[in-house]
């Protein structure tokens, strides 16, 4: 109480504050609130517990994703290989298995986790900023915009290192700016209008993508096409750069989670409640576009992840972005590992594209959400 009083005096600074007393909610209501509070709001304890469970799920999913495939590897062999690689101790490991795990599946699993986490957090951010539970990097056209950027780099500036993630980022930022402006009406942005703006932009950018693809030399057409549909197997060399960019984006968005909680309700109200709306919007839009650009540069257009994952998290854990952002990252990572394992195994020895799996799962869920929200 004493702390509260000094705070108050320093805040008000004038006579008006001097005779106002600190709040005196009586003991009973504070207790009643504490009991209700367990379900009514996010507590640090619930956050930690939830994230711990989700992290465990992610690790198990990763272990299965490494073990399952055309060359089946037992979990004990997997553990042995991991230990021998990290500690340098010799184990009776099969060298071919070691190569498959260490050089092929492990980078692919890391890529799946980082891309899944990134797309889910980007989706969470766009949804909060646009106050629209249907927003997603793919539906808004941002992923295709990033693909245009990455493809342009492939066609025009291939010799410059990391030109693809950078160009993809620029494509993503420009696209979200255009969609945002198109989605505004005089009364402010409506949900359907925004989605429509995304669809139109997506259609336009898709033609640009096809135009650029035809400009690519025939010898590379197959790999470019494969990347475009969504594929986690390409370019392990970019893994470190992309992981760094995506992690930075996730941290930036997490640091703004409280502001996003208020923005989610309304911009004017957020302003009235003390949020520096302009600054938060710019920072989070840029961070989400950074994530989308980096993810698209390595794995192409993987749709609907950013839509489904935050929605599922909110359904179980509530809408507080201090939970939704990190939990979506972990669940998104697990989900993409699952989708990729399915893609690798259903028609083995051939592989499906992961973008096909996510779209087959995601599009019906989008329709369901659209019907429910409007």
């Amino acid at each position, binding site marked *: 109480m004493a702390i509260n009083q000094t705070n108050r005096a320093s805040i008000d600074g004038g006579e008006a504050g001097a005779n106002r007393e600190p709040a005196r909610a009586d003991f009973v209501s504070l207790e009643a609130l504490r009991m209700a509070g367990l379900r009514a709001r996010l507590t640090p304890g619930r956050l930690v517990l939830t994230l711990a469970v989700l992290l465990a799920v992610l690790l198990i999913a990763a272990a299965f994703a490494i073990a399952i495939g055309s060359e089946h590897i037992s979990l004990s062999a997997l553990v042995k290989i991991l230990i021998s690689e990290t500690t340098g101790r010799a184990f009776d490991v099969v060298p071919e298995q070691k190569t498959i795990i260490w050089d092929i599946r492990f980078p692919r699993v890391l890529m799946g986790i980082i891309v899944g986490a990134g797309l889910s957090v980007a989706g969470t951010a766009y949804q909060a900023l646009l106050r629209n539970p249907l927003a997603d990097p793919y539906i808004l056209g941002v992923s295709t915009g990033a693909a245009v950027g990455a493809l342009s780099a492939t066609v025009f500036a291939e010799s410059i290192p990391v030109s693809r993630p950078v160009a993809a980022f620029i494509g993503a930022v420009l696209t979200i700016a255009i969609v945002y402006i198109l989605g505004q009406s005089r009364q402010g942005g409506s949900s359907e209008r925004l989605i429509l703006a995304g669809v139109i932009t997506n259609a336009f950018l898709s033609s640009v993508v096809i135009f650029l693809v035809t400009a690519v030399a025939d010898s590379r057409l197959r790999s470019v096409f494969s990347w475009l549909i969504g594929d986690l197997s390409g370019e392990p060399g970019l893994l470190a750069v992309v992981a760094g960019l995506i992690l930075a984006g996730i941290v930036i968005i997490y640091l703004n989670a409280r502001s996003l909680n208020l923005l*989610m309700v309304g911009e004017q109200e957020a302003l009235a409640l003390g949020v520096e709306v302009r600054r938060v919007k710019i920072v989070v839009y840029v961070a989400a576009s950074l994530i989308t650009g980096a993810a698209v540069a390595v794995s192409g257009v993987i749709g609907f992840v950013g839509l489904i994952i935050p929605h599922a998290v909110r359904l179980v854990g509530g809408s507080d972005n201090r939970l939704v952002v990190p939990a979506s990252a972990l669940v998104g990572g697990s989900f993409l590992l699952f989708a990729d394992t399915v893609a690798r195994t259903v028609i083995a020895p051939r592989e499906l594209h992961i973008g096909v799996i996510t779209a087959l799962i995601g599009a019906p869920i989008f329709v369901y959400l659209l019907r429910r929200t409007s």
Partner: protein
Amino acid sequence: MLQIKDIRFGYKEPVLKGLSFEVRPGELLSVLGPNGSGKSSLLKIIVGILKPAGGSVLLDGRDLTAMARREAARLIGYVAQESAVRFPLTAMEFILQGRFAQGRLVGFESEDDMREAAWAMEKTGTIEFASRPINELSGGERQRVMLARALASRPALLVLDEPVANLDISHQVKMLDLVKSLTSEGELSAIVVTHELNLAAEFSTRVLMIKDGEALACGAPREALTEERLRALFDADLLVDVNPASGAPRITVLSTSAGAGGRASQSK
């Protein structure tokens, strides 16, 4: 405590043309005027959502328009017309948003935040539905939750934009009773925009009448709400007499369509 001096604001056409008035400590000031008279713009300028083109907004001598958002948010509680929440926030999460300006930007609510929120919820009777999603509450319940969020920052001034527009008569009275009791306890002052003339006459300490961006009158309901002024203000035919129960002015609106009775039809 709140002094508005010569406020000007407009888009293409001027909306507010040099408006001046003050809100005194512990009073409930109602702002009355026809649609498009600039009432909502005025509130948004006080709250800091809109920037005035000229003039000053002083709270206890300090310029609100020049203040950082967080600092201003600690002094003023705003209840918007309607909050369209499309995410399933609980009532309590919503109310705790009122503590944003006091808390850390990153992290969780402190004991202090919980205590102040508990006070606001106790005042508004919202504790019982703390854990319910806000989009499942009734209109009256949601309005109380919005009021609780504004109170949670313990503001010196409460700003309410049509707080009773979507409520039935019983909830309208309860809502204004609550605001009135907060002001008369000396906790805060309140400025309310409303179209409910009779409720304004009943509950307000003073009323401010705005027409075309200018103050037509400002004073106690009994002096300000005359038949002549109200007719000029709303461009409507109406009668003003005295509420037999409270002694406040009572406004009766008359229909202008033929055959519906009243003086308008007689004059034809």
